[in-house]
């Protein structure tokens, strides 16, 4: 009954329920009622613009949110049978970098400039596996080889500043995968890289994921990356999930006006014709979140009913949308012809 590549084992690898995060001094939730399900080996992409809460969600899962100022208002994250949000810090540290690892956005600054790359990877191995220095070093070498860094024996003893950005990101991936994690969280891993290197790194991540059967949560704002990588996609807007589902469903038949706007604001290859479609307006500031649908002020279809927050409803085939207008009975509307203001006023 379900489409998509890897489906329904009895218990998912990661089950996040109703995660809400608030920051001191800000009245609204910056992450509001987010729920995610991820099976082993599956890739979940979280998309949305800057400040939509996608990175906060990832950091919260890793236990890396600075608290205070951040505060978790509600939520559970069951990972391999344990609630990540309800365990002592020491237990979480044993999981971090071991069963669950993270790749950051900035390869240029995410490696310690004072330590050789090989030692940094070896350190991550020694932290979690009871191995000696030589074994950890051998593992680091093996990992550098697996991420296809040329001349890995030499690179092992180099400092990060001797490597290019693409190579550093490979080294970060090597470090993250060194302990065979079941879950890899990548926060915009290719944003800082140039386009050709991006493609190589994505390709590498896909290959390694296939080899290790790790599940991947990929945070991105690049729909091209989503199309390339995802089994499932989650679209976030202003801290809430507005649409989620198998990537093919969401791309072929986007239901939320925000998703539709995102899709049509993508530049395509080929001859340029006219202006790119933009979504009018801006994301509401965190201290002035509207009560109801947070997208209403920018939505060409908004009406009086949008003053109440729409629930995330399942339209079938795990395709879920938080919009009163869904399912849309027509194709993607021509947003360019609908200045937002006209629909928003009521």
């Amino acid at each position, binding site marked *: 009954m379900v489409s998509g590549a890897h489906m329904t084992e009895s218990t998912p690898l990661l089950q996040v329920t109703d995660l809400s995060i608030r920051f001191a001094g800000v009245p609204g939730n910056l992450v509001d009622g987010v729920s995610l399900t991820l099976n082993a080996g599956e890739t979940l992409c979280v998309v949305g613009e800057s400040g939509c809460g996608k990175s906060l969600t990832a950091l919260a899962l890793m236990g*890396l949110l600075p608290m205070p100022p951040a505060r978790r208002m509600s939520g559970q994250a069951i990972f391999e049978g344990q609630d990540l949000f309800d365990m002592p810090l020491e237990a979480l540290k*044993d999981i971090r*970098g071991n069963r669950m690892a993270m790749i950051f956005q900035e390869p240029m600054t*995410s490696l*310690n*400039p004072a330590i050789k790359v090989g030692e940094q990877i070896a350190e991550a191995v020694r*932290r979690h596996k009871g191995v000696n220095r030589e074994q950890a070093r051998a593992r680091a070498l093996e990992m550098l080889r697996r991420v296809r860094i040329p001349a890995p024996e030499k690179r092992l003893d180099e400092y990060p500043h*001797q*490597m290019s950005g693409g190579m550093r990101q490979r080294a970060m991936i090597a470090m993250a995968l060194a302990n065979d994690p079941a879950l890899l969280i990548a926060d915009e891993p290719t944003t800082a890289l140039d386009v050709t290197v991006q493609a*190589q790194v994505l390709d590498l991540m896909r290959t390694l994921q296939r080899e290790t059967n790790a599940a991947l949560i990929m945070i991105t704002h690049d729909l091209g990356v989503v199309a390339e990588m995802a089994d499932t996609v989650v679209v976030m807007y202003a801290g809430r999930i507005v649409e989620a589902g198998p990537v093919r469903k969401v791309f072929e038949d986007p239901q939320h006006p925000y998703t539709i706007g995102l899709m049509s604001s993508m530049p395509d290859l080929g001859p340029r014709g006219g202006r790119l479609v933009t979504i009018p307006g801006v994301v509401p500031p965190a201290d002035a979140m509207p009560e109801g649908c947070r997208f209403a002020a920018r939505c060409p279809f908004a009406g009086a009913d949008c003053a109440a927050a729409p629930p995330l409803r399942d339209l079938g085939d795990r395709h879920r949308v938080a919009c009163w207008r869904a399912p849309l009975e027509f194709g993607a509307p021509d947003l360019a012809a609908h200045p937002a203001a006209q629909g928003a006023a009521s």
Partner: protein
Amino acid sequence: MTALTDTTHPPRKPRSRVWRKLRANPSALLGAVLVGFFTLIAVLAPVLPLPGPMETDWMAVRKAPSGAHLLGTDEIGRDVLARMVWGAQASLLAGVVSVAIALAIGIPLGVAAGYARGWTDAVISRGTEALLAAPFLILAIALAAFLGPSLSNAMIAIGLSAMPVFVRLARGQTMSVMTEDYVESARAVGLGHMAIIWRYILPNIFPPLLVQATLTVATAIIAEASLSFLGLGQQPPAPSWGSMLNVAKNFLEQAPWMALWPGIAIFLVVLGFNLLGDGLRDALDPRDS
């Protein structure tokens, strides 16, 4: 697959870049030469062909520089050159040991404050500020007087007085390194506090501390000379530039060389450490390459 276009950079360690920049800087080089020179004579003091620094010769009291006594003799006929050479040992030792004391106490406190924040930081910072409120030399004199006059007590007094500066510097640097992405990625790997401090904080706060330490050696040498001048440091008859100056001030008209040489030596060695420290600061500055 995945053809690699990454260009291989010539292997070049940061230390070698620092060294190159240091060598290209004439004043830093002069500083290094001065420091090297005084260090050399201080180390070689026991083997240099000189009379003992405490050997008196009543036949040659307050003699001007000559072939027999290159820098002259003092008021009880001791060879000034010999006393200068042994005095270099006291001065440099005082400078280095007191800075080592300051670092040994200051860095752990500063890193603890910057890493833990909260009330740990509040306690350490308030204490540091209280110490910083007292002028450096006054504090050192008070501590030395309290501990009792001797060279080792002078070193402790100077070290404790210089310590707050290192607490502050280490705290600030720790706080700034803590915001770096690589510290977050260290936490994401599951490393504990000690591993993060040892491997991620300390190596990255080291350069500014090194510069400050070099400059503080100069200050500490002056402080030692001042304490010895006041009789709170090296005790006679053991030689020290400060105590030599103290005696020499009584004979400025009859035997000016007694004051001249220690004065010049203090000037040169302090200049040397300052030039070297400034050079290190420039060389370690990653902003211009």
